[in-house]
């Protein structure tokens, strides 16, 4: 079981290294195959681990395997260890599985790009980093994975680095994530100081004895990191910009895996969060707020990828809501189904974008239903799953979170209401996009640029096969758990994360019914406005179009002061002080040299005089001293 886990972790790293070292000696397609096979191998190893773990008794399923001691400082010791337990195996399956499907899809999508090898090396690096994050046996290795996924995200967002917008987006993502990294590091410092360890079990045990202020600080720091990585309020502005990267990148990193790392963190360290209940409530609240905000903003987006990006933001809000309430298994379940249908939506959008020669504005699209029927069906399945329509996957996962909210008193009821509003919005914006892109008559643009297939036969098959696989998963993936009647997921995760909330049967039924009803209502409104064109949409409000002015706020709060400060320092400190002092030193040296040079008159008599005078002075000195 553990051997397979080690293989799963390091296979993608090996692939990244291999592609890098081989460089241009291999063809681009070979690099693509290396990456795909490595990720597939990783998934196979994850399956082996899973099967092996399944064979064990419930209590025996956690295994901490340490390669060697990595850091030692006094009493503090951190090992290079991986933890193989139900939660990490769950994540391994999701990451490696969806990852290998998306990397396979990239064979087709990135076909023809000059820098394919670099792309696949980065993708392999990312898969390794994400696996390191979920498999790390202590918080420090989690942080290593955390940082590496941030790096991979930066590298991949700015993949087309001759585009200034891509470079700017990459920097924005990295800087905002760095803020979260900092709060996490601070939390770790407090944890080390107070408990002396970063190992999961040990730290959680020792945390019971800490003061509530300390616990709140630690949990707040961890929450900061989670919020940054998962693009929740208030650190959500980087995710839409991250759509500058290639579409498979958006699918893998910014939908299925990296942005869900925050949820994983909360579930993994739920023991700490449970000791700081206010912070847990804050997490749930932030999730709910993000859910609503993102849903509203998605209504006015015109770029197909940005609609899906805001949708991601909104769905992760659901996961935060669930994790904050204590419905850990439900949150992880939703994470899994979301990975399926969100990746599916992105990959379908990618096919559309390629078919229309790079066009991403939905206002230019229309009537693609008849021209690209397979893609239409796939995206329809994805959209229905996203909106939570039974019997597709989203229905099972989303509703269980909302049902759990009803078990938590008045605060839970508020969250429930928000979640319901979100369900309505989800249906609305998703099908707005689908009806605008695929429905109606063909737009002028589509008529001028009829969709064409991209790449050679292998490329096309790679894209169709993977999209097909994800369609199946998005449809059937939810059948792993149904309310409290059939709960394999909750049971699987129970040793690691026992849920805090248990919804009763009535609550489940109410939640499900309401969510489905609202989702259908949203779809109906979208059909009324965008499908059948019976009414025109109201003009979008300025606030929505500017995404609630968060970008402007952060610009004013952070960017311009920083720029101003740096200009001031450059003017005051850099110029006169730093440059001036160095110039002064050199000027002093030159001046001194000039004066000394004046002594070199070349006149013999002057030198003789100097000699004689020196002798006179020396005699005086010797006589006086002696």
């Amino acid at each position, binding site marked *: 079981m553990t051997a397979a886990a080690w293989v799963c972790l390091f296979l993608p790293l090996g692939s990244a290294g291999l592609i890098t070292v081989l460089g241009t000696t291999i063809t681009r397609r070979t690099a693509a195959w290396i990456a795909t096979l490595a990720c597939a191998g990783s998934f196979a190893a994850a399956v082996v681990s899973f099967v092996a773990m399944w064979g064990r008794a419930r209590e025996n399923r956690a295994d901490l395997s340490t390669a060697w001691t990595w850091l030692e400082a006094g009493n503090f010791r951190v090992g290079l260890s991986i933890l193989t337990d139900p939660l990490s195996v769950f994540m391994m399956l999701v990451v490696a599985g969806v990852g290998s499907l998306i990397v396979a899809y990239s064979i087709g999508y990135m076909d023809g790009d000059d820098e394919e090898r670099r792309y696949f090396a980065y993708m392999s690096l990312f898969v390794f980093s994400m696996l390191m994050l979920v498999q790390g046996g202590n918080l420090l290795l989690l942080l290593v994975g955390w940082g590496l996924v941030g790096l991979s995200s930066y590298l991949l967002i700015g993949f087309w680095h001759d585009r200034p917008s891509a470079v700017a987006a990459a920097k924005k993502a990295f800087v905002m994530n760095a803020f979260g990294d900092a709060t996490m590091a601070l939390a770790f410092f407090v944890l080390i100081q107070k408990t002396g360890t970063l190992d999961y079990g040990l730290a959680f045990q020792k945390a019971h004895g800490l003061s509530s202020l300390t616990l709140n600080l630690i949990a707040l720091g961890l929450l900061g990191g989670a919020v940054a990585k998962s693009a929740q309020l208030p650190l959500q502005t980087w995710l839409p910009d991250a759509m500058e990267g290639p579409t498979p990148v958006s699918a893998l990193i910014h939908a299925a895996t990296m942005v869900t790392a925050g949820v994983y963190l909360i579930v993994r360290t739920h023991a700490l969060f449970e000791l700081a209940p206010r912070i847990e409530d804050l997490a749930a609240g932030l999730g709910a707020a993000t859910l609503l905000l993102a849903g509203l903003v998605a209504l006015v987006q015109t770029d197909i990828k940005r609609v899906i990006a805001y949708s991601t933001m909104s769905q992760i809000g659901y996961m935060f809501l669930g994790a904050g309430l204590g419905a850990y298994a439900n949150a992880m379940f939703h994470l899994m189904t979301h990975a399926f249908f969100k990746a599916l939506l992105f990959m379908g959008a990618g096919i559309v974008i390629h078919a229309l020669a790079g066009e991403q504005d939905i206002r230019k699209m229309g009537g693609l239903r008849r021209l690209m029927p397979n893609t239409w069906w796939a995206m329809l399945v994805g959209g229905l799953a996203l909106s939570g329509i039974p019997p597709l996957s989203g229905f099972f996962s989303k509703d269980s979170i909302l049902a759990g909210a009803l078990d938590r008193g008045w605060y839970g009821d508020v969250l429930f209401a928000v979640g319901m509003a979100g369900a309505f919005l989800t249906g609305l914006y998703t099908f707005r996009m689908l009806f605008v892109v695929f429905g109606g008559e063909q737009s002028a643009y589509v008529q001028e640029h009829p969709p064409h297939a991209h790449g050679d036969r292998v490329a096309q098959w790679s894209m169709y096969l993977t999209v097909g696989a994800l369609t199946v998963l998005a449809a059937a993936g939810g059948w792993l758990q149904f309310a409290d009647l059939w709960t394999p997921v909750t049971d699987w995760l129970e040793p690691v994360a026992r849920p805090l909330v248990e919804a009763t049967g009535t609550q489940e039924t109410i939640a499900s019914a309401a969510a489905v009803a609202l989702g259908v209502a949203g779809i109906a409104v979208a059909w009324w406005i965008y499908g059948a064109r019976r009414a025109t949409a109201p003009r979008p409000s300025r606030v929505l179009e500017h995404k609630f002015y968060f970008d402007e706020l952060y610009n004013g709060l952070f960017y311009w002061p920083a720029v101003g400060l740096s200009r001031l320092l450059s003017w005051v400190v850099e110029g006169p002080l730093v440059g001036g002092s160095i110039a002064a030193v050199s000027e002093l040296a030159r001046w001194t040299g000039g004066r000394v040079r*004046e*002594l070199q*008159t*070349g*006149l*013999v*008599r002057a030198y*003789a*005089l100097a000699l*004689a005078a020196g002798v006179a002075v020396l005699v005086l000195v010797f006589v006086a001293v002696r």
Partner: protein
Amino acid sequence: MLGPDVAGYLIIAAFLFATGALGVLIRRSPLIVLLSLEIMLNGANLALIAFSRHFGRGDGQIFALAVMAVAASEVVVGLGLIVAMARRRLDLDVDKLSTLRG
């Protein structure tokens, strides 16, 4: 010892030395400078001989003879330089020979 003490001779030696130094420092012709240099050396010689007589040991005279030999050698070289300068039609003026200025 008959006559003045060694102190008298030393005074003369000091005067000769100072005069020679003055000449070296003030005159511009290299020939005169060399001659002044000879005056200085002779002043030193006188002091040596005086002390030799005072302490009754012959070492001072040995030293004075050595000084004389060295002075002669130095004059050879100095005059060779002056002749070389003259041959190259240079001005016999130490102030004009200042190409080693900084």
